[in-house]
């Protein structure tokens, strides 16, 4: 058959962003209203701790591929009250009711946990040698946006179309993390350290121009990403 929805590819690396409580704060499992109680921001692996009102016989977890799972001992429907459920990767619109089941897996990449099909290790951008950065600073007129921060470039970031769709929701903003680990791996890992072998966390500056790997099918998008982080942090 043709490309079936909801098919998507698990990542070999991930862009994680933080949930902003302003996006939404509740959904229902059966008659139980689950509420987001924490203000501010939360990484995907911190979400479960931000929710209250979960029915006692229901549990939330991540699959190894980054998919979220809600499972219970009896069947229940799930109602998306606002955009909270969509942020988890359920692709729902507010008011939508998901059929009664004992297990509810997310159906698409979360817009806050974007799977990448490839991601080269980061390179530090030489802001003096790359003319575009000098010109940007010059045309800005009042210094660099991020002062003396280092800018890191991740080349050969490859996203499939479901990942691009998740990206276009627009939640990848502010402080993000480019990581070789899925939300599940972050959730279960006790000891992970930042650095060249692990994730890099910083301020998202944007994507640089990219292109389709094969423009005739438009399945995979290849681009590079810029991240700023204070020079003192390695």
């Amino acid at each position, binding site marked *: *058959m*043709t*490309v*079936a*929805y*909801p*098919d998507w590819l698990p990542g070999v690396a991930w862009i994680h962003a933080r949930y*902003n409580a*302003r996006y939404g704060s509740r959904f229902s499992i059966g008659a139980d209203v689950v509420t987001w109680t924490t203000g501010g921001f939360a990484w995907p692996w911190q979400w479960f701790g931000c929710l209250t009102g979960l029915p006692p016989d229901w549990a939330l977890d991540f699959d190894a591929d980054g998919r979220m799972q809600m499972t219970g001992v009896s069947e229940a*429907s799930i109602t998306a009250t606002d955009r909270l459920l969509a942020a988890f990767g*359920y*692709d*729902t*619109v507010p008011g*939508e*009711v*998901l*059929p*009664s089941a004992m297990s509810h897996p997310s*159906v698409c990449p979360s817009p806050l946990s974007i799977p990448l099909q490839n991601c080269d290790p980061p390179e530090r951008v030489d802001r003096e040698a790359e003319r*575009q*950065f000098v010109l*940007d*600073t010059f*045309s*800005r007129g009042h210094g*660099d*946006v*991020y002062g003396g921060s280092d*800018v890191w470039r991740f080349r050969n970031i490859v996203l499939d*179309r479901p990942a*691009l769709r998740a*990206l*276009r*929701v*627009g*939640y*990848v*903003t*502010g402080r993000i993390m480019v990581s070789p680990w899925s939300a599940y791996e972050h959730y279960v890992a006790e000891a992970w350290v930042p650095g060249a072998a692990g994730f890099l966390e910083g*301020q*998202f*500056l*944007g*994507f*640089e*121009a*990219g*292109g*389709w790997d*094969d*423009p*005739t*099918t*438009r*399945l995979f*998008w290849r681009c590079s990403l*810029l991240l700023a982080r204070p020079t003192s942090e390695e």
Partner: protein
Amino acid sequence: MAHTPGIGALLGGMDGEDLDAFLPGDERWLATVMHRWFFETGDAVGPAGIPVSCLARVFDGWTGTIVVAVDGWAHEFAPPEETSAIEVLDLIVRYGSRRGGAWSWSMRATDDLDNSGYRYRGIATISSTVPFELILSGTTRTRLGLLGTYAGQLTYSADLVFVDGDPPDLLLEENAERVSVMVPSQGLVLEGAVGAGRGGGITQASADVDRGAVGLERAEESGTVTLWAPYDELVDIEAELAHKTWDVGFGGEHSGRVRVRGLARDRRGPDITRCSLSAAVVAVSL
């Protein structure tokens, strides 16, 4: 000389009629063939050998609602007032999949010549791995051509090709009906016209706390849609394309929205009837 058997093959045209690569017995463009070879793992939706790339006109006047139901769990929604068949099919498939099963849509050209003598007009098929129900109303029902009763099956095909009776374009008064979906019989390719966000550079990086990503900008980006088909079909497609906005679908997915700015026939060789059609387009926001 021995060689390792392949798991696939690139096939060249052998009939001397065209230098593009086709599958024998059915003219499909190479990219389409490659797409199907790489990404299709099961039986094709509908008859084998059908084109899977199409163009759907974006226009207003979409009314009514669509109810998608699986096992009694229904969801009702209204398509945007201005949209295309591709976008509506995408919505049906997405809403449907949340109620169970893996869903897909496909577009093929009419099997028979229609009243105007053309084969390229699109017929939609919606499939799922679980039985489902569809209830449509308003112009959405007629424009998709889904006029029947749809319940308890895995696959539904539209009854009619996608045409509507909107007032004819001033430039094309001879065409009383506007074709809404076109499936060029030898395929199409969309180059450029990305329409995705791109970095604005460090200078323009600024956070939109509500929803926008830092430095992501929607920029007008030009591109080209190239279509291959027999000459008569190309001439008619050219008349339909005009200066309209179209959605491009590849392999049962919405791939981009473009606005046509200009059209040109590119001859291939001395025979004036052997040509492809190039449409200069710009990406427009979804």
